[in-house]
């Protein structure tokens, strides 16, 4: 999961597939009318269901591996619905935002969605990115943006593979 996973000669390249503004709510990411669908295996079909640009990406098969959504501040504000995270996770997306809503960020950590806080990020659709633990490099423009690292506990949860294995370990330690 970590940005350091690719330490070979050529670090993996990510592609910006969509650029969004501030305050993208979980209602936009996963509209309420699909909330009866809860299984992570079923939620990806409704990701950004009312967003023509994202629907076109899915329709045209333009979500290759290492696709990135870049957003402004407060991405994932609003509802606590976890489908908003599992639907993006299911498309194997990475989200880079200037900041995240609190519940969304925690849900992302809990489910292992890569959500990177990058306060100064400014990129264009189609840009190629190199993602490291401490910065994001836009290879298209040559600009580098600092990453705000996750607090240690969230980092540990990510490294454990999410909250379920993390909790399982705690449960077993109690015995």
């Amino acid at each position, binding site marked *: 999961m970590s940005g350091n996973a690719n330490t070979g000669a050529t670090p993996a390249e990510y592609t910006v597939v969509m650029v969004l503004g501030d305050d993208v709510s979980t209602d936009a990411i996963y509209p309420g009318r699909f909330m*009866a669908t809860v299984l992570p295996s079923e939620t990806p079909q409704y990701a950004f269901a009312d967003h023509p640009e994202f629907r076109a990406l899915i329709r045209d098969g333009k979500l290759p591996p290492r696709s990135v959504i870049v957003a402004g501040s407060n991405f994932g504000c609003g509802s606590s619905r976890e489908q908003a995270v599992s639907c993006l996770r299911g498309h194997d997306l990475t989200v880079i935002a200037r900041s995240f809503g609190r519940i969304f960020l925690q849900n992302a950590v*809990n*489910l292992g969605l890569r959500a990177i806080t990058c306060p100064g990020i400014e990129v264009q659709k189609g840009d190629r990115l190199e993602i490291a633990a401490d910065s994001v490099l836009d290879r298209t423009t040559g600009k580098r943006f600092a990453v705000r690292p996750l607090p240690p506990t969230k980092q540990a949860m990510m490294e454990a593979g999410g909250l379920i294995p*993390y909790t399982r370990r705690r449960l077993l330690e109690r015995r």
Partner: protein
Amino acid sequence: MGMTVVEKILARASGRQSVAAGETVEPAVDVAMSHENAALVINQFMEIYQGTGLEPKVWDPSRIAIIFDHRVPAESAKTATNQKKVRDFVAHQGITRFHDIRGDEGGICHQILAESGYVRPGFVVAGTDSHTTTHGALGAFALGIGATEMASVWALGLLLNVEVPATIKVVIDGRLGPCVGAKDLILHLIGRISAQGANFKVIEFHGETVRSLPTSGRLVLCNMSVEAGATSGIVPGDEETLRFLRDDAGVRDGVDPVVPDPDAVYDRVVMIDASSLSPQIACPHAVDNVKPVESVRGVKVDQIVIGSCTNGRLEDLAAAAGILRKRKIARNVRMLVFPASWRVYREALRRGILADLMEAGAVIMNPGCGCCLGIHQGALADGDVALSTTNRNFLGRMGNPKAEIYLCSPEVAAASALTGVISDPRTGV
């Protein structure tokens, strides 16, 4: 160093003398609340136990509350089956605070928690619903979490990753004008500090206006604190909190309010003069796009909604009925009313409030959340404009991304129902 209310609560719940903003703690949970999404929590809970050889057993069935409210009665076989799965789990685990689809004890989760006396000052309340912030009105630290985190709480009784939030102190002084209330205060605050102005922080409410608000109004303030991004809103417990818990929630045992230290450290202080406020309107498509009613007057509306965990209480229905009694809503509007709980519904029925609303032309719906988030009844047509006392006006919120939603108080909603356009309730409509 002095502590804020939330720092005191988190210190107690983590078994520590003190905590300060920025530290990470693992507080014990006093109330763990879920609604229909308990179905997903159950999946995740079972997965935690997979391969452990342990029997999946919740840490304390008496501290878990489950309330069906999002799709009641079930609108589809899928929902009905999810609800059945939750019912079976509740029975198997011995969960007692279960509120099924019933006219005696059902309703919207946040109203049920408050009116059932499940929440006390000093509690840590976690809920799989972002509006769990509501319970700060009773002096609790109350936060929304995801389903997987709730599964972890069910297993361990702890929140494993709480970064002690910094606290914004909001001081509201001044006498509220006619037809101006708690909804206008919180909309004004959100407009001022923005939809992310309190992200990762707590809003602690102070001032003479807040002290004089009944609990019903404080619930509105804390309910919508999340719309400024707050982890929790909180009103320090006082005489009114004790009165509400004793008289309205049937709490018989001792209750200790938690108040901040005089030298508590705040992130910042925001002052509001309540006496200068007009009724406030949140305009499409953001809760922080707030304007005084004077500058939105005359916008044509198609559907009026009064209800929800924000403004579906007896006081809200009574305020609307006071404006609509012996009058008729405009022919070109539909008016939907959904009380916050069946207890509220029954009391409004007894007092003749529901009859007044119906005779004016309103439709009374089941207590529930469905209409507010566009999942069960009350959908909007393409191009429709809704004026609603609910809490969110995001694009598509009420089920149709081609509609617009304005948010307001019950008084503005009722006055506008009469005219069919957004109207100022103070000008004798």
